[in-house]
């Protein structure tokens, strides 16, 4: 706080017609701001504790839910209102510098609480025993690196990463381009149908595809779609998700994710393609370029940014793939992936140390990707 403002500025000097007022500190605003913030935090803390300790005060859970949303959102808004008042009360030189921090810091604090703290805690626990009560050095890492299941999961994850994002983007582009050539009604219908699976959860989709891949003993009616077709063509019923040859079972699981994600890819790419200026395409046509040349040399370079965005987004989704494997095979028959292995280590086996070690390995593996994404984002921003 600066000393050039007199300690006890008389109130009448703070009128709006006083040009020097905003330069000086405004103790009233500061006081109301602080009191307001403290009051809000105190009130919110007590209210939310009351939700937990005395639920009978509120009648039923629905009322608690509505109250929590209204008071939570309203309280956050009021908190920022008082925070703003506090900062405005400061002398202008301070206030101008402090405002961005005042609004960014609470957000940063929660990011730190929810992301950074758990990250370091996980790294810490990865050196501890199965219930995180004593340190065991590098034992967990030795155990997981010696576990063939871990390496199998790594290989599978790499396969998922190599195949799924590429196929999703390729299908997305193809569908977007082809749909573009349809009549407006046809385009709408086709896109809606392809986008529909996006609304289904991973678990739901896995259950649906579980029916497609289902197996019944030879001689019985085949209720699985794939086996019904296969037997209809004269084959023996196959246990599709058990066929490890050429990783067929893993690939069949990838089909589920591709089915879910193509809609997303198509929607983004389609709007990008529609945004390609018509005159560049016409110019290419006048120059005698074939449709294929136009597609690869005119359209693709102009939607490159969107393609990378879609690719990276799908890539990250694939990195976290868990639900599909958990629901269909739970990692049996060589289909395990890192996230499923981690989940089973933590919850089925109660091996918190090994589980966190797996997560730390995964974390290290994604760092280059995060770096690439940030760099790509910056480049995009810079080229604007």
């Amino acid at each position: 706080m600066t000393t050039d403002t007199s300690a006890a500025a008389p109130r009448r000097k703070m009128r709006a017609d006083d040009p020097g007022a905003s330069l000086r500190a405004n103790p009233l605003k500061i006081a109301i701001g602080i009191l307001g913030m403290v009051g809000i935090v105190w009130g919110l803390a007590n209210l939310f504790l009351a939700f937990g300790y005395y639920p009978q005060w509120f009648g039923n859970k629905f009322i608690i839910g509505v109250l929590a949303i209204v008071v939570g959102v309203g309280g956050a808004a009021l908190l920022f209102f008082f925070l703003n008042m506090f900062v405005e009360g400061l002398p202008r030189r301070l206030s101008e510098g402090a405002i961005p921090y005042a609004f960014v810091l609470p957000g940063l604090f929660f990011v730190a609480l929810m992301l950074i703290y758990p990250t370091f805690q996980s790294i810490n626990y990865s050196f501890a025993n199965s219930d995180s009560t004593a340190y065991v050095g590098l034992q967990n890492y030795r155990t997981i690196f010696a576990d063939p299941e871990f390496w199998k999961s790594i290989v599978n994850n790499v396969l998922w990463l190599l195949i799924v994002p590429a196929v999703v983007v390729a299908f997305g582009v193809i569908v977007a381009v082809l749909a573009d050539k349809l009549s407006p009604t046809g385009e709408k219908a086709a896109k809606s149908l392809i986008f529909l699976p996006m609304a289904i959860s991973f678990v739901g989709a896995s259950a649906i595809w579980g029916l497609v891949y289902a197996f019944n003993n030879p001689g019985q009616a085949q209720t699985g779609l794939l086996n019904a077709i296969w037997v209809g063509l004269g084959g023996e019923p196959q246990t599709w998700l058990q066929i490890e040859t050429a990783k067929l079972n893993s690939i069949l699981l990838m089909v589920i994710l591709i089915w879910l994600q193509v809609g997303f890819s198509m929607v983004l790419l389609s709007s990008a393609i529609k945004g390609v200026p018509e005159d560049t395409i016409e110019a290419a046509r006048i120059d005698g370029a074939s449709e294929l040349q136009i597609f690869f040399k005119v359209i693709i370079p102009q939607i490159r940014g969107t393609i990378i965005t879609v690719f990276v987004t799908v890539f990250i989704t694939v990195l976290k793939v868990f639900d599909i494997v958990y629901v269909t095979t739970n990692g049996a028959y060589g289909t395990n992936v890192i996230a499923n292995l981690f989940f089973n280590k933590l919850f089925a086996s109660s091996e918190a140390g090994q589980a966190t070690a797996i997560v730390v390995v995964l974390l290290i593996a994604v760092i280059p990707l995060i770096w690439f994404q940030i760099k790509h984002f910056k480049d995009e921003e810079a080229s604007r």
Partner: protein
Amino acid sequence: MSGIPRRALRAGGVVAAAALVLTGCLQNPNAGSGQGGAGGGAAVVDGGSADGDKKVTILGAFGGDEEKNFNASLAEFEKASGIDVQYTADQDFTTTIKQKVNSGDSPDIGLFPQPGGMLEFAAQKKVEPIDAYLDYDRLQGTLLPGFLDASRYRGRVYGAPMRNAVKSVVWYPKAAYDEAGLPKDPATIQALRTDVADKIAATGITPWCIGWESDQATGWVGTDWIEELMLRMYGPTVYDDWTSHRIPFNDERVVKAFDEAAKFNKDPKMVLGGTKGVLNTAFGDAMTPAFTNPPRCMLHRQGNFATTFYPKPVQADLDNQVGIYVFPKFEGGYDGSAILGGGDLAALFNGNDDDSKKVMAFITSDKFGAPWAKAGGWLSPHKTFDVSNYPNETTRKIADIANKASVLRFDGSDLMPKSIGSDVFWKEMVKWENGQTSQQTADNIEAAWPKS
């Protein structure tokens, strides 16, 4: 405000604010042991929902018809006591209960299908020992022998059975079996093979109906086979040594039991659909092909609960449709009548709620379960339970098998550490069924056994 130095004002404000924040917050009225909050008692544990609100939450693994029957069995008690019991079923119970308890959102009561998970909570002091709120001696007097031992941790018992499952039962479709003139109580496993299974195979029918598929828990049916054979080939002492890891998992006796199990589970001439059929048939659907005409398989080894999965017409006419006998002894093995059992164990998370204790006392007593028993698929763990409540002769026969058994052993995989009993053992059984050798399977499980 004028006249008061700014610095003093500011300091005062900060102090006032800090005091307000630190002193003004609510205290948990359910604060656990040691803190002795307003509603808290002296119990060891205090999870679960609010105390004394006439509401008791229960989390369990069974859903569907079983859930309906469970609620029906509680209806009268709820009316009489005014306590509202809210049961939630979760297929993935073993995982869910762990997440809930660790995040401080435990139910008042958990119904554990396996003691392993419960004992883990006992070690963490998350469940209340039953001697603190139930009449231990009376329970011990009426329960089948060995039941309370399954939930003992360092001398104290932490859960009481709510349901009994007798697993050593062989089921067969009566009409077809009688027609073929097959023996109804083979004395040994060897006789079961030569006098029953081989004869069925000779008529062109695959003898055994086996299904292992059970979503994330696929493989448990296989572990039951190994346990059954371990108990019959070597007797309860070796069985206990095996489940408590006093002998290594890859002991040659265990490997032999695997090889013996392979004769039922891995031979395509003996089991319908071969190994593919076993791994892809849901355990509940395994017996269904036995009820076609002619049957496609004839023998099914499964617990008493198997009836709930039979086709509706079969369930309605159970005594005439299916026959049972006890899974026989192993020739050259243990000579007593051993039974492999299991059951749901009720454990209390909220040690300060009298309502929850009342519910616990009721569901673990021999008075509980008449409506469920009448509906079928449920057995009381109490010898004193009124058998006239069972809906049919078949169930009474099973209850009789259990009451007569000289040795009852709990499902072994449920007694092993959780990382083995509900993870590695299941998964390795699947690999074994899918072609892995017995030796390799036993070696893998031994290698995964937690070192401590």
